[in-house]
């Protein structure tokens, strides 16, 4: 079944790269939505049906961490899985993201395969040839 994706990053180039990686992964995606920061993402989440969010952390206005926190406080949005896609790959950042409720973490720079593996896991799509070296999930902590 097709799912809708929201990509949140203040870099339009990075949004395009993430979108391209998802397309290359072969997932059945219905709609792609984009937002340049957490505030715009919340606005989009309130008017569109989104099945999964991929978000950067370091953004103006409302950053990725704050976006996850806001979503988890919102009864309608708390069940939408969020995958962090960020350069900030320190253990503390990853742990904090997972504590806030993120479902996965992809460190930049990434290979398209990292997106495929993490998105597949979060959306329940199995991949038998997975390589998790650049991706992290809640159970890793």
């Amino acid at each position, binding site marked *: 079944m097709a799912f809708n994706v929201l990509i949140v990053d203040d*870099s339009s180039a990075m949004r395009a790269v993430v979108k391209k990686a998802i397309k290359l992964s072969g997932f059945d995606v219905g709609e792609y939505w984009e937002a340049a920061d957490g505030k715009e993402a919340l606005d989009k989440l309130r008017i569109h049906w989104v099945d999964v969010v991929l978000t950067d952390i370091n953004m103006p206005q409302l950053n990725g961490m704050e976006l996850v926190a806001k979503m988890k406080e919102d009864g309608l949005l708390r069940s939408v899985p969020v995958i962090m896609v960020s350069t900030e790959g320190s253990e503390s950042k990853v742990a904090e993201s997972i504590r806030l409720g993120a479902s996965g973490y992809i460190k930049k720079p990434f290979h398209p395969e990292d997106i495929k593996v993490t998105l597949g896991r979060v959306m329940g799509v199995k991949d038998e040839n997975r390589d998790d070296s650049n991706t992290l999930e809640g159970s890793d902590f």
Partner: protein
Amino acid sequence: MKTEMIQTHLREAISEVMETMFFLPVQFLDGRRSIQEWFSGEDKVMEAFIDFEGPRSGRVFLLVPDPTVNEMAANFLGLDEDEVSEEHAQDTLKETINMMTGRMLSIADRKARCALRIPRFAGEWNSADPEKGKSSGVLLLFETGKHHLAAGVVEPGI
């Protein structure tokens, strides 16, 4: 952390980002050369930088000749070079310095609590900039085969 350590971590971060995201292996210059001399053959060099704050604070800058920025953006976005817009190019350069710095800080200290600020595009590099001319802090000169690039860290205390 010593200057040599920062240099090693930045070097590793540059290689990883350039190869993984832009498919551009780089070679680092061994030995000293002034930044002005390094760029003497390049017509137009663009600059991006990012500040980081926390237990350590400073600025990381990246200097890339205009044609290389175009090539990077094309590889990054899967476009032909003549399809790359100015916004694409600037965004690519900002994202590059963001990834390099984030990676450098992650390598330097896995528990680092340094926060990255928003990356900035600074436009065309001013070769008379005394800050970089003195190569204060860390300065790395590297090349893609076609063009010369440079990156450095300006940090109080190093």
